[in-house]
């Protein structure tokens, strides 16, 4: 009897008060991309400007078996201090509440990300929120971010349901012209090596991702080219598949690089801190030239090509390293992290003034290319 009374009590309790959280799926706005610019509205101090936040979300009326509308994507924007504030501001204008769980790309424009304060604010907002996915991708763009979204609308050909940007980011890449980074990874990099690269979105002539913006302690320090990005990716074991062209015997050879492995090692007992890089990879010849005189039929030829390729790569790497150690002074290779993990004693010595030590450390490169396959041709 007691039990029945209790059960009745619960049931009435539940039934008399409503279901608080029930919002039907089709009654939600489910944005997948958010673009963050600075507000156009004028304020006195540049630092206190509001953000101009722009969501793009799919039009579910245009999906499914019998679509009733054509436009795949809608865009809605708002002036607010944070993404969270923007959602509540927007919900006063649209009939559906905004639900951010499926947000998977954040694009920041230069005016936002070049200000450390905004970067920290935006990222904290994303991190603190219960709902937002911590695997959200970060992107930067030189132009205005919401125009990137608008531009995206025009190129309907490439539009997919999850949004062009996230598809581009998740695409299995043939070459590492950019390296996708997620919010969680970004924060982790900031903690581990203090430097992170956020891929750069280029709107013209077509939306593409190339290179990236370099952040150090949440502060923007400069852009890197896609070649640099590729080299960094190779040196940090992020890349598995690259294409390079080399000049050999007067013709071009296209090589596909596979199984790329880079190992770094501290060379002990040196005056200057010396890191030795051992980069080893397999290669496959993709294109040479039809010319019976130029056969790839002896190990010597292969050795020559390998040597040539190694040299080319080494040179490439050296240029990138020079840039990193020189003007950027950014340890994207994770050398500090490496020291912290494997040589804690040295780490403790250099930790304090790494910024002044990093430009002068000695990085030895040893590149080895092994050509395993030459394709379906004897020549």
């Amino acid at each position, binding site marked *: 009897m007691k039990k029945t009374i209790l059960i009745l009590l619960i049931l009435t309790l*539940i039934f008399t008060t409503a279901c608080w959280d*029930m919002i039907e*799926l*089709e009654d939600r706005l*489910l944005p997948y991309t958010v673009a963050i610019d600075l507000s156009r509205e004028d304020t006195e101090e540049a630092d206190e400007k509001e953000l101009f936040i722009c969501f793009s979300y799919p039009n579910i009326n245009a999906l*499914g078996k019998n679509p009733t509308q054509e436009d795949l994507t809608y865009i809605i924007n708002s002036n607010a201090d944070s993404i969270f504030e923007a959602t509540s501001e927007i919900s006063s204008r649209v009939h559906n509440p905004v639900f951010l*769980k*499926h947000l998977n790309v954040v694009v920041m424009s230069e005016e936002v990300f070049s200000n450390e304060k905004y970067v920290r604010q935006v990222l904290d907002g994303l991190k603190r929120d219960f709902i937002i996915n911590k695997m959200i991708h970060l992107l930067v763009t030189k132009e205005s971010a919401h125009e990137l979204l608008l531009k995206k609308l025009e190129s309907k050909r490439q539009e997919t349901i*999850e949004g062009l940007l996230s598809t581009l980011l998740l695409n299995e890449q043939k070459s590492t012209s950019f390296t996708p980074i997620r919010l969680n990874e970004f924060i982790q990099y900031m903690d581990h090596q203090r430097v992170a690269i956020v891929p750069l979105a280029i709107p013209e002539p077509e939306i593409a991702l190339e290179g990236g913006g370099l952040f150090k302690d949440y502060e923007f320090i400069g852009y890197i080219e896609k070649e640099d990005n590729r080299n960094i990716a190779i040196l940090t074991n992020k890349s598995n598949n690259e294409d390079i062209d080399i000049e050999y015997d007067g013709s071009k050879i296209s090589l596909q690089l596979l199984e790329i492995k880079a190992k770094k090692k501290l060379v002990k007992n040196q005056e200057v801190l010396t890191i030795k890089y051992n980069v080893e990879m397999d290669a496959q010849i993709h294109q040479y030239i039809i010319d019976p005189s130029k056969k790839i039929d002896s190990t010597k030829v292969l050795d020559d090509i390998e040597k040539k390729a190694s040299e080319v790569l080494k040179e490439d790497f050296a240029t990138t390293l020079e840039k990193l150690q020189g003007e950027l002074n950014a340890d994207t290779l994770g050398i500090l992290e490496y020291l912290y993990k494997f040589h804690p004693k040295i780490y403790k010595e250099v930790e304090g003034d790494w910024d002044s030590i990093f430009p002068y450390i000695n990085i030895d490169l040893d590149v080895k290319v092994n050509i395993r396959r030459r394709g379906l041709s004897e020549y």
Partner: protein
Amino acid sequence: MLKNISKNIAANIQYIKEEFKGSDDLIIRNIEVGDILPIKLAVVFIDGLINSEYVAEYVIGSLLSEEELKSFTVEGYKTTILESIKEHGLYSTEIKDESQWEPIIDAILSGDTVLLIDNSPTGIIIGTRGGPGRSVGEPQTETVIRGPRDGFTETLKHNTTMVRRRIRDTRLNVRMHKVGRRSKTSVAVLYIDDIADEKLVNEVIKRIEDVDIDAILDSSMLENLIEDNYLSPFPQIENTERPDAVSASLYEGRVALLVDNSPFALLVPATIGTLMQSSEDYYTRWIEASLVRIFRIIGSFLIFLPGPLYVALTAYHPGLLPTKLIYFLAASRINVPFPAIIEAFLMETTMELIREAGTRISGPIGTTIGIVGGLIIGQAAVEAGIVSPLMIIIIAVSTIATFVLPSYDFSAGFRIVKFGFYILAGFLGLYGITIGMILLMGHFAKLNSFGIPYSSPYSGLGIDEGDIKDTLVKAPIQRLWLRPGFTHPKNIQRMRRDKKK
């Protein structure tokens, strides 16, 4: 009410007529035997309950034609008439003396024939039960692809026979009880003496004796009366139509109850483990049987989880599904005017109606209802945009899953629980479902079947004995050298343990 029958046959006949005042189907056949000294005899039976050819030939026929009876003399008359009739006058196999009225009346009511003899204070009950009955046929509810095809009938005697044939062991006990003040239904308690746990047997017998009701029409009534927790949606007693399943259970140390007029035997104790077993498992190869067992367990979850999960995920936590899926789900729901919970209840109600209609009407109309209900209503509902296509798929899957469990009552339990889950999911989303799962688990843990934990072997009893080998999966028969431990059998060894693997 008289207790003993009198010596005067006329008085006896008068008494019987008085007792069966309203029964016009009572037949009293008066005969006289003996040329020298005629003896009045009365054969009493109820028309239709007896095997009339048998009575005519082996009772009345034999009495009238036996030479020994014709030549009675005065000396022998008083002392030996009863003996002579028993020894020489009856060709029938099953006879019993009886001088009390109550058993005699019971015997007449159960289809036996009673022979009353003038000047004798003792009547003879002759086993002549017969009358209409179904012949042994294939079980309707538990068909197998491979395995014996005989099923129980409504006749208790046939049913015990079918079990006996499979257990040719004197230790098989068949204890008869009468249940029902008016119906006086025979209930046979079957167990193997040196396997079944005494405590269990005594508990079963005690509960049967405690039953006080006027009539038992089917074993399911008895089941409800002796169950541990009759408020639970889940059955704590297993039922089967298959004699081979009963025999197998007896060999496992369980107790079987056969109820007259019911083709369903009851098996106790029942646990989640045993309710997921089907006798077919033992006739197919072990790998398939194991796979099927695992699918049954998955199926039992599929009965009650997909619908509530759909409600919880679409209405509460759209964040928990992959992005692509969620957009298409949203698109498929765009025209649905109801919230997911209403949509689900709508379809569930329709499905229950179709199911009920389909079971009540058998044959071609039943199939038509299935087609109309399943195909046309489903199709039309989606076309009309009242429900989303995914909802139809979910309802269909969970309905199919209900037929995967061998025990109908058990799957019906899950079906009932499903509505609770819908309510919880509709009000609290995933948290509600978790609370529901916790309560369900708690309920399973709290249930007992005749003192045996219902949740066995999944609740940590009997794992040592290897019950899991025959519940979660079905190990090869060579590996099942022990009886399951949950029944606490007196004799655990089932076969010689083979040393070589």
